[in-house]
């Protein structure tokens, strides 16, 4: 025999209660994501170690053949780029998680409950940011151990990390938007394929001046390039400042790009969540 619980939901909670509920919702939904980590610890750890592997591959395997225009160590040039790349690769896990929830009907269940859309999206957001912060820390420690460092003071370095996380935060909303439209995890593999050319078509691994002019121009335009260049500046890592407007205004762009992405994709993501399937 199934017993019923009296409905304790306060139908129209007061302002204060509503805020308290919203906090509980965000916390409960974040905890859910953390439980996912617990259920798949290897997957999570591989996500953190993958950029380290790329770093070693590019730093040591190809690094000998790479020359940094303007001189300096390629490894020092590479590190800021790898940080930006790591922020970018984080999008994959966002897209995958969002698509899985939507295709399994979990998102629909949340949407049929009296919880606010923003609580569901914020929960996603908090945990993905935490994931990226840890990934970033792993890469920082590896870099420091291998001789990378910042040369313009801790305040500039913190500024650079701030810009990197800002990039991640803006891409997160792109990821939520894409994830809500991918309809099934199968399509996500397309997204995962696309991540590579977009990531490589930037100044993460090589300076754009070494590319054919037209390709270099596209690469300069990549938000990843702006953040990488800005981080190189702030860390005092090598990398010739090009003549282009883009590279001369890297700091501005490293803020501008994410803000633009946020302005577009945050509202779109919220709208898609509310109107899923419509």
């Amino acid at each position, binding site marked *: 025999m*199934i017993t*019923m*619980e009296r*409905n304790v939901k306060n139908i129209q909670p007061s302002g204060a209660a509503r805020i308290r509920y919203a906090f509980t919702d965000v916390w409960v939904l974040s905890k859910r994501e953390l439980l996912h980590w617990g259920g798949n610890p290897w997957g999570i750890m591989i996500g953190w170690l993958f950029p380290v592997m790329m770093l070693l591959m590019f730093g040591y395997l190809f690094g000998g053949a790479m020359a940094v225009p303007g001189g300096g160590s390629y490894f020092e040039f590479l590190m800021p780029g790898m940080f930006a790349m790591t922020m970018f690769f984080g999008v994959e896990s966002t897209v995958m998680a969002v698509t899985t929830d939507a295709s*399994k009907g979990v998102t629909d*269940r949340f949407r049929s409950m*009296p919880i606010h859309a923003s609580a569901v999206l914020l929960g996603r957001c908090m945990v993905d940011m935490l994931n990226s912060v840890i990934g970033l820390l792993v890469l920082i420690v590896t870099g420091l151990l291998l001789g990378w460092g910042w040369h313009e003071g801790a305040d500039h370095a913190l500024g650079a990390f701030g810009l990197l996380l800002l990039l991640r935060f803006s891409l997160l909303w792109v990821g939520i938007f894409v994830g809500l439209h991918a309809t099934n995890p199968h399509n996500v593999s397309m997204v995962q394929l696309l991540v590579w050319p977009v990531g490589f078509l930037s100044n993460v691994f090589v300076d754009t001046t070494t590319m054919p002019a037209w390709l270099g121009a596209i690469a300069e335009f990549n938000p990843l390039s702006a953040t990488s260049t800005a981080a190189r500046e702030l860390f005092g890592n090598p990398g010739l400042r090009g003549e282009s407007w883009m590279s001369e205004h890297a700091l501005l762009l490293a803020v501008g790009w994410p803000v633009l992405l946020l302005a577009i994709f945050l509202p779109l993501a919220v709208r898609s969540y509310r109107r*899923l*399937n419509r």
Partner: protein
Amino acid sequence: MGAHAYAIQARNVKKHYGRTKEGPGLNGLTLNVPAGSIFGLLGPNGAGKTTAVKILTTLLRMDEGSATVAGYDVSKEGHLVRSRIGLAGQYAAVDEQLTGYQNLEMFGRLNRLPKGQARRRAEELLTQFDLTEAAGRAVGKYSGGMRRRLDLAASLIVSPDVLFVDEPTTGLDPLARQEVWGAIRSLKEAGTTVLLTTQYLEEADQLADLVSILKDGRVIREGTPEALKSSFGGDRLEVTLLRQEEVVKAERILRGIGGAFVLVDNAANRISVPVTDRTGSLLKAASAFADSGLEPEDIVLRRPTLDEVFIHFTGQNGVSNKEESR
């Protein structure tokens, strides 16, 4: 909420996907679901059952029309509707990476239960849905029936005024199906109105107080299962043959005796026709078979099944449990 006579009312609800004005979706759905009843929304695949459920649970917006659930307008008071309903969607919507217990605790918390109460309620429901043993296992490892039951439990954490269950037993084995039916019956006893969609006629017949048959996004027949069966005509004369080769011949004979709506089940060598004159037609059939030298395995008079009503009205084969299990 006052004492509304109807827990769900839909008036001429239209919904088309994309930019189309015609075609798949809902083409003017009207429903009146009395409070406290089990209501069966019956229809073949693609009839619009899931679309209707999604609109009534505020997951989709309708193009035209109006609807209330638990007394609240689904278009204008979505938040209030959501605080009064439970939804068990077509695909068990539980988190596969969490355990059964973690799922129920999480949904309890999201339903505003304090932590202790959410845990107690999770344990209670796990017991009631016979999932205690699996409570600590990841739901991804559950069987279809277990997942369904967990999904149902999750939609019952706080008692909903109205519960929507979309094809609750599709893909379940007969035992699991019985369990889910039992759960739905006891919900009704506890005072919840249940809207159930199904492709299984037997399911609607077993559970529902009222049934609407949906086709192409429109209700084409409604009433109690009994009334639907009677509206379809009187009794049916059903003949089962021993050999496949005899079916055609027997069909010709029966067409001469009964009404136009003849059903032939080739897999079972079975034919049925509607008849008005009970004993008269039975005798006629018996002598006609004797004259032609056919020896049927069985001849019976019986009430029509909801399957036959369904096939008759929708022009399509409903999937019956019997057929599926063959």
